[in-house]
């Protein structure tokens, strides 16, 4: 079993500390969901984990089986097993997805066929694979294209930043099924970040973390979703007692 451990993570953006001692531990094959209101630090967590140049890590540690990721380049973090599916995947004109995946180390033999299969699993149009990375794709198509990369790269842990935004119900279902299947296929650990509760209907998490004020303020099982459904985030505001 593989373990992802985030401990005491403090991250600043533009000089302002947004993550203020974030702790989370999860294992391969598990599905965890991080929920929290806008501005609670969810996206900062995703970006900091994969080494976005604008996010400054002040303190803390992120390890996979004891290997520290924060001292690694963005490339080596992915190669250590951590993949980020972005909220707003970037357009990279002139660069083809198949070339990216090959350069990322995907096995060349049969790559096109495996990509075509992953495309079908998330209901993308196959011709989109011929386009340059994310160029001329809608927001929802980009999210699904991230899942194609995910399916090819087979990370040990996947962090999905607002994977549900911009997706209609059918596409969300397809993406959630793809993620759930990965936990069986290669024991992927899935860490999904969202502020919508509807993702929980599609993707059944074993653990839910509620984030407020840049740290985890509550961790629990699926029953936590019912509390959120009923009461919203207000009872979880940073200073409020549980």
């Amino acid at each position, binding site marked *: 079993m593989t373990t992802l451990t985030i401990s005491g993570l403090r991250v600043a953006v533009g000089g302002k500390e947004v993550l203020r001692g974030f702790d989370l531990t999860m294992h391969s094959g598990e599905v965890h969901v991080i929920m929290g209101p806008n501005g609670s630090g969810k996206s900062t967590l995703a970006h900091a984990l994969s080494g976005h140049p604008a996010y400054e890590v002040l303190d803390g540690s992120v390890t996979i089986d004891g290997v520290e990721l924060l001292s690694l380049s963005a490339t080596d973090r992915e190669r250590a097993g951590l993949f980020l599916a972005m909220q707003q995947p*970037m357009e990279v004109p002139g660069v083809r997805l198949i070339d990216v995946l090959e350069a990322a180390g995907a096995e060349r033999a049969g790559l096109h066929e495996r990509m075509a299969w992953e495309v079908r699993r998330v209901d993308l149009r196959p011709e989109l694979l011929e386009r340059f990375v994310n160029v001329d794709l809608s927001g929802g198509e980009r999210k699904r294209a991230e899942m194609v990369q995910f399916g090819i790269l087979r990370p040990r842990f996947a962090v999905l930043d607002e994977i549900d935004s911009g997706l209609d119900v059918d596409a969300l279902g397809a993406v959630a099924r793809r993620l759930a299947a990965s936990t069986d296929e290669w024991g992927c650990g899935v860490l999904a970040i969202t502020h919508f509760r509807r993702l929980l209907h599609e993707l059944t998490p074993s653990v839910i973390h509620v984030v407020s004020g840049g740290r985890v303020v509550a961790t629990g099982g699926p029953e936590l979703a019912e509390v959120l459904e009923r009461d919203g985030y207000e009872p979880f505001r940073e200073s409020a007692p549980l």
Partner: protein
Amino acid sequence: MVDRPITLLTLLTMTTFAESATSFISSRPDSEERGRAWSNFESIGLPTTTDEVWRYAPLAELDLDRFAVPATPTLAPASDFAIALGALAASVVRVVDGFLVDIGDPIDGVTVDLNPTSLTIAGDDPVERYASDAFALANAALCPATVVVTVAANTVVDGPIVIIHSANATASFPRTHLVLERGANATVVEYYEGGAGAIVVPVSEYRVADNASLRLVTYQRLDATTWHVARTTGLLERDGRLSQAVLGMGAHYDRSRNDADLRATGAQNELRTTFFGSGSQVHDFRTHQFHRAPRSRSTLLSKGAVADTARSVYTGLIEIEKGAKRTDARQTNHNLLLSPNAHADSVPNLDIRENDVVCAHASSVGPLNALQRWYLESRGVTRSDAERLMIQGFFLEMLDALPPALARLVEGDVALALQSVPVIA
């Protein structure tokens, strides 16, 4: 500079460039007109670096006597790449040292001919048309004959026409006219290869008649020792569309002047140029979009990268004539420096004599987009591979006029060329 071993044979046959030129000219039926172009070339002489538009050309190393004008083409097999390119074309026209050697497979509505004169595509005297351009005058004097590809009115050509230019002699002066008659539609690839230790001076002219459309890709993949001085001109009639991509990969000195004359209402010109420079290469791109009629549109995108001690120059002029109302002209230039000793200059110019126009230009010299690079890195791509993919992308973006199989072939060739450059990242 190329070191050429001087053998006994070359000593015995050594002549000056001028001697080879006058001998060539005297053998042609129109030697009088050619002689006039040649004497004008001689009287204005090669440019010097004190001339602003030639400031960055290593003219001090240009010794014309290293070159000789060939009387006949030196036939040699084309490269594997050229053959593969041809295999995906609707028709392959082969030109060796400026001589047409194969007119390709027949296509309905397309003719490939030779015009023995040096007249311009508009029928004008080249000595007047190119009066101040020494290299174009040399071409008027020394081109064996103009290769004329004509697409008849309302003919839509499926698949690209590929013109393969091989430079085997030490000097070649190819001249190409592409004529798209009213309502015609075609895609043409002009590909240049060879040229080791040689000078290659192509002059191409394109006439796009009313409502015709020409998509053109020029891929320059000459040897790293070649002097390449090219000039292209598009003449666009009413609602004519010229979409032109120019890819400069090879040559020691790569000069490409690309002009468009938007002479009638609704003419549209899209010009995209890109280059990659390594070693001590110089890429020197000059553009002139001349809007002479209302509602004409031009967009220009130039993107290039220089490594090692390479340098690049981009000078673009948008000129809008009085009366060319509601013209829309845009020019963007991005240069990428990959080494502290590489240098890029960018000089956009506007000359606007009409008020009712939209005109914009932007230029930048800087590094690659850091967020795009991070995005690729976060997929597990190394920094050097990410940069290589992004630079390769400058070229790949130029190829969207081509059918996918042909575009992939050129992409593969670009990738191969970039792989041999160890300086990225």
